[in-house]
Structures are given as structure tokens and as C-alpha cells.
């Protein structure tokens, strides 16, 4: 404060110093050397002209100058000088003195003009008379001489001639000299002339009068003219001019002294100002340095504040846009702030809420104990969590879950409370509903379980029936196949036998008829041999078939575990399908150790391989013209027999693959397939053989059935 006051004083003082400087400078430049020169030279010229005036008057006085133009010109010039000498600035004390000096000068000039005017006038008269006197005297003498005949006045005339000659001589001398006594002599002569005048004729008297008039004028005007002349020559004009100069010079020197003083002051003030400016510059630089630092700190602070502002704005926005209600109260519980969600949740506007106590939301459902607990918790500086059952502005009730925490100032004192509340009415409802739903669900589950059990039992029964049915169907199929197979050799055998019979009967006939034809007989014999062989062969084939069939049926039914050759068993099955693959390009390869003998159920294996071969023929190679390979690879190790059945037929897609082992699944229901083949297969392997079967296939890539089941190695 005192510093700024000091600075203000410094400002005022520097302003004053500046004003003083300006004034001093103005005074300094106000000194006008030109004016001084002008005045001095004007005065010089004035005095020069004054001298010229005296000289010209002297010249005029002695007839050496015959006109007054130069006098007039000189006077005009002098008047011009005097008017130029009139002091013009009235601001100095010397002005009055100077003005007085000028006034003197002016008055002197006015007087001089008057004197000169009179001098001119008198001089003209004097010169006229002086010039006329010799003529007048000559005229008089001539007149007197002419009248000399008048004897009686001869003496008088002579006397007058004498006097007038003397007079003119005296006057001429008088007019040109300073001799005072001459004036007395002339006066004496005029008196004498006056005495003699009465005695001459009237015309001569007039001439004498005229002469005396001019003579008197010369005497009188000589002194007048000289009076004017001396008046001008001795006039104080010169002295006045000198006075004026002295006054002016005093004034000028005073001014000069002042100006010098001002100059010195100007220098001193200038130096002071310079020092002041230097000090100020030094201080300014120091200040500017400080300012820079302050500026830097301020900028830092601003950045931080900006950051804090951003933070605050973010927090504010977060609170403002929070999906939960936020209420801030002071320590007395008066609401300071609510966010829009609160407004939305309670129906109270922000203006309505702020300033109120949160008890405006009280539904009355909560016990006073509840609220006491709340306030006790908060008062001890802890966070309170709980649920409120509150009432909206429109009266409707709602539940909210609240977390109320004290907000502490830096001092550690609680300054505010913040309540974060979430509407949980819906959750509460859902919880109740869920409880109900769970109860009813238990009942339903019990009921369903019972139903399921029943269904399972029923299913089990159905499965048994189905298995039985399939067994019958398989038998039927076997019988049908068998019949078809055996029919051919039996038919051929029957045909051959009957042909043989015919040949025999012909022989018999021939023998009976004795028309035995040896040739014919030999032919018939040959034919009979042939037919007999044919019959035998076909019958053997039929017998083999029956043998095979018998084994099959034996294995299938009440089969018991026994040791058998795996290869032989499978070979038999393949052979039984030879007719099915007869006209196709499909080759069946069996890779199996011929020595491999195991103890198991050969009938089951037989049936399984048969079903797989049948499926391959029917499904994998439905096109008869297609060439293909079916390979059956059997390995037996570690009491485990593994059969890999591969074909390179059309394969199966995923859907088919997933349902492959399900009962009644068939892709060819319309073609008379039952869809039980693989199901039986599966059951045989998993139940009877206690093994497993898997199938992998892709459409167009063939199919691989991998079967494995435990065996007792032989």
C-alpha cells in the first residue's frame, strides 16, 4: 500500500518535473537572438538616420540642399523604425520600462516632426527673403539713384543708398555666420533706414518697407531656423534611442540571465530525470524478472486448475448423468444438491428439493430406530448402507438402496453427506416373484420325473418288442435269402436229373423197342454223364449252403462263447454275399491273420459283418456300375479284437451320422428298409459283445466303422 502510494508520488513528481522541463525549455527557446539583432540594427539605423536628418537640415540651412524630400524620407523611415521598436511581449517586468523608453522615443519623434515641419516652413520664408534681399536692395538703390535729380533729397538718398548697401552686406554676413552682434548692427541700420524713410517719395518708402520686412524676416527667421536646427541636433532622440537600447539590453540580459538559469535548471532536471529513468529501468527490469517468475507460477497453477476443473466437470457430469440418485446434504441434513436422476425418481424438482430435509421422502414405514441407527452411523463418521421405503411426490411408494457417506473437509470435520441411492422396487418385486416361481417349479419337477420314469419304462418295453421283432424280421430275411440262393442249384439239379431221366427212359425205350441205336445210345450216355455230374455239383453247392445257413442260424440263436477262426467266420459271411456283389465292380478285401482264433460269439460277428456288408451294398454303392473297395481289417491284441470296416462309397453327412445307430432310422424307408440294421448291430456289439462301435464318415469320402470288443485269446 505504502509502496503504491510512493509510486504515485513518484509519478506525480516526475509529471511535475516534466512540466518544469517543458516550461524551462519553452523559456529557453523564447529568447530571441534574432529579435535582439533586429532591435540593435534598427536602433543603429535609427541613429544613423537621425544623424542624416541633422546633416540635411544643416545643408538646407546653408542652401546646399534645396528641397525637403530627403528630410521627409528620413523622417518617414525613422518613424517606421520607431514603430518597429514597439515592444510586443507584455509578460516581463522590463516591458513597462521598455514601453516607457519607446514612448519617449515616439514623443521625441512627434516633436521632431513638428520641429522639422516648422523648420521647412520657416526655412522657405527665410530663404525666399534672403534670396530676394539683394534684388530688393538693388531695386531700391536704382530707384534712389534715379531720383537723385531731386537735389533737395540728395543727401537723404545717398544716405539711404549707403545704409541699404551696408544693410545687405551685414545681412548676408549675418545670415551665414553665428555673429550675434551683427544682429544688433542690422537692427541699428533698419532703425536708421526708418528715420530716413519719411523724407523720400512714397514708392520709395514702400520699397524701403518691403526691404525692411524681408530684412526683419531674415533676422527673425535665421534665429528661428537655427533654433529648430539646434532643437533637432540637440534633441534627446539620440539619448532616447540610447536609453531604449540600454533598457532593451537590460531586459535582454535579464532574459539571458534567466535563460541561463533555466538552462542550468534544465540540465539539473535533465540529469535528475536521467537518473530517475535509469533507476526506473533497473527496477523495471527487476520487476519484469519477478513478473516472469510469477507468470510462470501462475501458468502452472492455471494448468493445474484447468486440470482440476476438468476433473470437477467430469465428476459433475458423472454425478449429473448418473443412473442413480445422488443427494448432497449439509451436516444438518438440509439438501444442497440433487441430481436429475433424483428428480426423475422422486418427482420433486431440484428447486423443491434443495433446502428441504430428505424426510420429505419419508413413507412412515421405517421405524424411528432405523433412522436413529442411520444418524448414529453417520455422526460417528462411518458409511451407512441400507434400504429405504420412501414416498414419491405423487404419493406412490418405492424402495431404494442407499449408501450415505460423510464428506470430510481437509480439517477432518464432516462438512456434507452424500447419499447414493438406487431404486430397487423392481428388484424387490422380482425377488418375490422368483421365490414363488421356485416353489411351483419343485412340484412340477417331481411330477415330470414321475412321468419320465413311466415313459422310460414304457420305452424299455418297446425296445424289447422291437428287438424281438427285428429278430423275426432278420430270420425272415435270412430265410428269404436262403431260399433264393438254394433255389438255383436245386433247380439246376432237378433239371439235370429230369434230363437224365429222359435219357434213361429213351434208352429204356430203345431197349424195349429194340431199336437200339448205338450212336444215339452213346450220345445219350454222354448226355447222361454230363447231367449226372451237373446234378452232383449243384447238389453239393446246395449242401454247402445249407451247412452255412445252419451255422449262421446256430450262431445267432442260443449261441455260446466258443473258439473260432475269425478269418473263416468273416470269409463265410463274405461268401454268403457273393451273389449280392456278383455283377458289381466292388471288391471285398479281408485283411486278417488266418491264425487268429479267439473265444467269443462268432454268430454275433457274422451278423454284424453281414449287416455292414448289406448296408454298404445298399447305401454306399447304390450305383451298380461304380467300382469300389470294401476292406475289412481285423487285428486282435490284448484280449481285444478290433475290426475296421471301410468302404470308399458315397459316405454320409453329419445328420445321418448322428442318427446312424438309432432304431428305425433309415434313409430308404420307401425301399422297404426297416432302419433296424445298425441298431441291431449296435445292440449286439454293446450288449452281447460288451464292446463299442463308432462310425466316421463324410459325404463322398466313404465310411469307416470301427468295432472293438473284448475277447479271450485262444
Amino acid at each position, binding site marked *: 500500500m505504502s509502496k503504491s502510494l510512493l509510486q504515485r508520488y513518484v509519478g506525480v513528481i516526475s509529471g511535475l518535473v516534466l512540466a518544469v522541463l517543458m516550461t524551462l525549455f519553452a523559456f529557453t527557446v523564447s529568447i530571441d537572438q534574432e529579435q535582439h539583432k533586429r532591435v540593435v540594427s534598427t536602433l543603429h539605423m535609427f541613429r544613423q538616420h537621425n544623424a542624416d536628418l541633422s546633416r540635411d537640415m544643416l*545643408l538646407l540651412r546653408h542652401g*546646399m*540642399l*534645396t*528641397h*525637403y*524630400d*530627403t*528630410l*521627409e*524620407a528620413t523622417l*518617414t*523611415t525613422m518613424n*517606421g523604425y520607431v514603430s518597429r521598436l514597439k515592444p510586443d511581449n507584455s509578460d516581463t517586468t522590463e516591458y513597462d520600462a521598455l514601453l516607457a523608453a519607446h514612448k519617449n522615443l515616439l514623443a521625441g519623434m512627434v516633436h521632431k516632426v513638428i520641429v522639422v*515641419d*516648422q523648420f*521647412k*516652413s520657416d*526655412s*522657405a*520664408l527665410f*530663404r*525666399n*527673403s534672403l*534670396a*530676394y534681399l539683394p*534684388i*530688393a536692395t538693388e531695386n531700391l538703390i536704382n530707384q534712389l539713384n534715379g531720383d537723385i535729380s531731386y537735389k533737395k533729397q540728395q543727401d537723404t538718398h545717398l544716405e539711404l543708398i549707403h545704409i541699404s548697401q551696408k544693410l545687405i552686406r551685414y545681412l548676408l554676413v549675418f545670415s551665414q555666420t553665428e555673429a550675434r552682434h551683427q544682429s544688433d548692427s542690422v537692427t541699428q541700420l533698419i532703425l536708421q533706414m526708418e528715420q530716413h524713410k519719411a523724407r523720400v517719395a512714397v514708392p520709395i518708402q514702400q520699397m524701403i518697407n*518691403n526691404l525692411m*520686412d*524681408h530684412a526683419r*524676416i531674415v533676422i527673425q527667421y535665421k534665429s528661428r531656423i537655427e533654433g529648430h536646427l539646434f532643437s533637432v541636433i540637440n534633441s534627446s532622440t539620440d539619448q532616447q534611442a540610447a536609453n531604449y537600447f540600454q533598457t532593451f539590453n537590460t531586459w535582454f540580459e535579464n532574459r539571458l540571465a534567466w535563460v541561463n538559469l533555466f538552462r542550468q535548471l534544465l540540465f539539473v532536471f535533465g540529469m535528475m530525470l536521467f537518473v530517475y529513468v535509469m533507476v526506473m529501468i533497473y527496477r523495471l527490469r527487476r520487476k519484469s524478472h519477478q513478473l516472469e517468475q510469477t507468470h510462470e507460477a501462475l501458468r502452472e497453477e492455471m494448468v493445474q486448475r484447468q486440470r482440476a476443473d476438468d476433473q470437477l466437470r467430469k465428476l459433475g457430469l458423472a454425478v449429473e448423468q448418473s443412473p442413480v440418485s445422488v443427494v448432497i446434504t449439509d451436516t444438518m441434513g438440509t439438501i444442497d444438491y440433487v441430481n436429475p436422476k433424483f428428480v426423475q425418481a422422486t418427482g420433486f424438482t431440484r428447486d423443491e428439493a434443495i433446502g428441504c430435509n430428505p424426510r420429505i421422502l419419508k413413507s412412515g414405514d421405517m421405524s424411528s430406530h432405523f433412522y436413529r441407527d442411520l444418524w448414529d452411523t453417520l455422526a460417528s463418521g462411518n458409511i451407512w448402507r441400507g434400504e429405504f421405503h420412501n414416498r414419491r411426490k405423487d404419493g406412490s411408494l418405492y424402495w431404494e438402496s442407499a449408501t450415505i457417506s460423510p464428506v470430510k473437509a481437509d480439517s477432518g470435520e464432516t462438512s456434507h453427506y452424500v447419499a447414493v441411492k438406487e431404486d430397487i422396487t423392481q428388484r424387490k418385486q422380482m425377488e418375490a416373484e422368483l421365490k414363488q416361481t421356485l416353489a411351483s417349479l419343485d412340484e412340477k419337477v417331481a411330477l415330470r420325473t414321475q412321468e419320465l420314469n413311466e415313459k422310460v419304462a414304457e420305452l424299455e418295453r418297446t425296445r424289447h418288442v422291437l428287438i424281438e421283432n427285428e429278430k423275426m424280421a432278420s430270420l425272415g430275411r435270412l430265410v428269404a435269402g436262403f431260399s433264393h440262393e438254394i433255389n438255383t442249384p436245386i433247380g439246376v439239379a432237378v433239371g439235370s436229373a429230369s434230363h437224365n431221366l429222359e435219357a434213361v427212359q429213351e434208352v429204356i425205350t430203345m431197349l424195349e423197342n429194340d431199336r437200339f441205336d448205338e450212336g444215339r445210345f452213346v450220345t445219350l450216355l454222354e448226355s447222361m454223364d454230363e447231367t449226372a455230374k451237373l446234378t452232383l455239383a449243384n447238389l453239393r453247392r446246395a449242401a454247402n449252403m445249407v451247412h452255412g445257413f445252419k451255422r449262421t442260424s446256430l450262431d445267432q440263436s442260443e449261441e455260446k462263447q466258443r473258439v473260432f477262426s475269425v478269418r473263416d467266420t468273416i470269409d463265410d459271411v463274405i461268401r454268403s454275399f457273393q451273389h449280392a456283389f456278383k455283377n458289381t465292380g466292388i471288391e471285398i478285401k479281408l485283411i486278417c491273420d488266418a491264425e487268429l482264433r479267439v473265444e467269443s460269439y462268432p454268430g454275433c460277428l457274422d451278423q454284424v459283418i453281414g449287416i455292414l456288408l448289406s448296408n454298404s451294398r445298399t447305401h454306399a454303392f447304390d450305383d451298380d456300375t461304380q467300382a469300389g473297395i470294401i476292406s475289412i481289417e481285423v487285428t486282435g491284441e490284448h484280449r481285444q479284437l478290433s475290426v475296421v470296416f471301410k468302404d470308399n462309397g458315397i459316405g454320409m453327412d453329419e445328420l445321418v451320422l448322428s442318427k446312424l445307430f438309432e432304431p428305425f432310422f433309415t434313409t430308404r424307408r420307401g425301399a422297404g428298409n426297416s432302419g433296424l440294421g445298425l441298431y441291431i448291430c449296435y445292440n449286439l456289439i454293446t450288449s452281447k459283445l460288451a464292446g463299442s462301435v463308432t462310425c466316421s464318415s463324410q459325404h463322398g469320402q466313404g465310411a469307416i466303422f470301427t468295432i472293438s470288443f473284448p475277447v479271450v485269446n485262444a
Partner: protein
Amino acid sequence: MKKNHLIILLIGTLFLSASSLLAENLTQEPIRPLPTKIVLNPAKVELGRQLFHDVRLSGDDTISCASCHSLTSAGVDNLVHSVGIRNQTGAVNAPTVFNSGYNFRQFWDGRAATLEEQAAGPIHNPIEMDASWARVLPKLRADADYVKAFSAHYSDGIQPKNIQDAIATFERSLITYSRFDRYLYGDTNAITEREKEGYRLFKSYGCIACHQGINIGGNLYQKLGFFGDFFADRGSITKPDLGRYNVTEQESDRHRFKVPSLRNIARTEPYFHDGSIPDLQTAVAIMARYQLGRSIPAEHVDLIITFLHALNGVDHE
């Protein structure tokens, strides 16, 4: 400033010519020739000419300077007393405006020191132009040509002092060279023998005592009626007859008048301040009687008058 400059120049010119003549004619001729060259601002001369002829300077727009100082009749009106506005008659005879710049004072009684001062006189005189600046200025300021001309030469436009300056400048241009000037410049044949004889008599009879210098008079005051009482002889003395006394109220100035210039004297009748003398013979005789205290024979008077004719301007309108 410019005005002052011109005046200084003019005075300088006069002074220079005077000093040169002084050296040459110191004891020679008391009459000095007009300068061969004067320096004046031609535009101001022209402006002064217009104003000189402008009747708007008078109260009722009837009278101009030229009404009484006609440039076609030797700068005078040749009347005993001039006629002002509303046919009022003045009290004194109008002196010629020609060569008036060489008069040491203006008016018969010398009450104006300069031509500038003089110019304002008749304008304000109720029996002459009977106007005032207050009435004249608006009339002139309404004239666009004047406004333009004045603003071209005077920073403050149409002002009384500027009007006076312009008129005075014009009047200073009105100089009339005579054959006698040529004689004075050395042309001995410029005047006749009779005129030379007249000049000799003019000098010897003492006329030259007053009528000398460049304007042959006009540079001093003289009492009218030194030898004998002119006014008593004439009778009925009027106020203007008191002459310079009216200005100074000094007894010695009673009947004292500015000695008039004799240039163009043969054309500027009637004579004397009262215009009482219609012819030069009488005027010369009266002058000899009352001013010189002698009588001049008639034949000498004729010779003097012959000489006076040689003072007429020869090259002016």
C-alpha cells in the same frame, strides 16, 4: 507582411534615388524627377482600380472615388467644391489624386499621414460618400469576384485595412511623367526656352522655396498669407480656412496648409484649398503677393505659367 515589404521597397527605391540624386544634384536642381520605375503589386493595383471606381463604397451607391478624382481630368473634378452623395457640396477643393503618393501628408490640413489613412476619410464623410465600413463590407463581400481577388492577396479577405491598402496601392501607381521630368533627367530639349526662362523666374522669385522636391511641393506646410492677410482680404472665414489649426489647435498652425504639388497644376483649376481662384495668373499673383511679399510683372507671370504647363503629365490619359 507583403504590404510592409512593398512599402519598404518603395521607400527604399525613393531613398536610393534620392541619395543618388543627392550626390548628383546636391547644389543643383531643387526639383527632382519622378522615378523611372516603381515597384508595386500589379494585382493589388488592379484591385485598387476597381475599388477606386466602385460606387458601392458610398452610402447610396452613387459616388466612387473617381467621381471627384476623375482619372480623365487630371485626378480632379475641376469644381470649386466637390459634390458628394445627395448632391451635397463639400467645403474644400478636391486635390488631384495623381502623384498623391509623393505628398508627405494627405488632405489640405495634412490630417492623414498616408494614402491608406486618407482613403477611409471620404468614405465616412457624411457630405462625401456618407458610408461606413459596416455598410460597405457586406456589399463588397457579396461580390464573388472581390471575395476571390481579396482572398488571393490578403489572408483575411475583405477587410477595411485591405480595401485601404488596395486603393492606396492603386493611387501610388498614378504618377504622371512630364516633359520637365525628362528635362531633369538631362534631355535639355524636352522643354522650350520660354519654359526654361519660366523655370528660372520660378526659382528666382522664390516660388522654389516651397514648391520643390519630387512633387514640386507637397512636402511641407506653409501659412497662407504671410505677407498680408489673405483671409481678411478675401473675407468670410470658414472652418476649413483655419487649416492645420483644425488638427493641432496650435495658434502657429492657423491658416497653415500643406503646400500643394504643382504637377498638373495647369489642369487642376480652380486653385487653393477653397477653390476660390479660377486661373493660374491670379493664383501666381496672389502667391507672389501673400507668400513672397513682392509683385511679379505680368510678363514674368506668363513665363512662370508657361513653365508650369511643362509640369503636366504627358503620358497619362
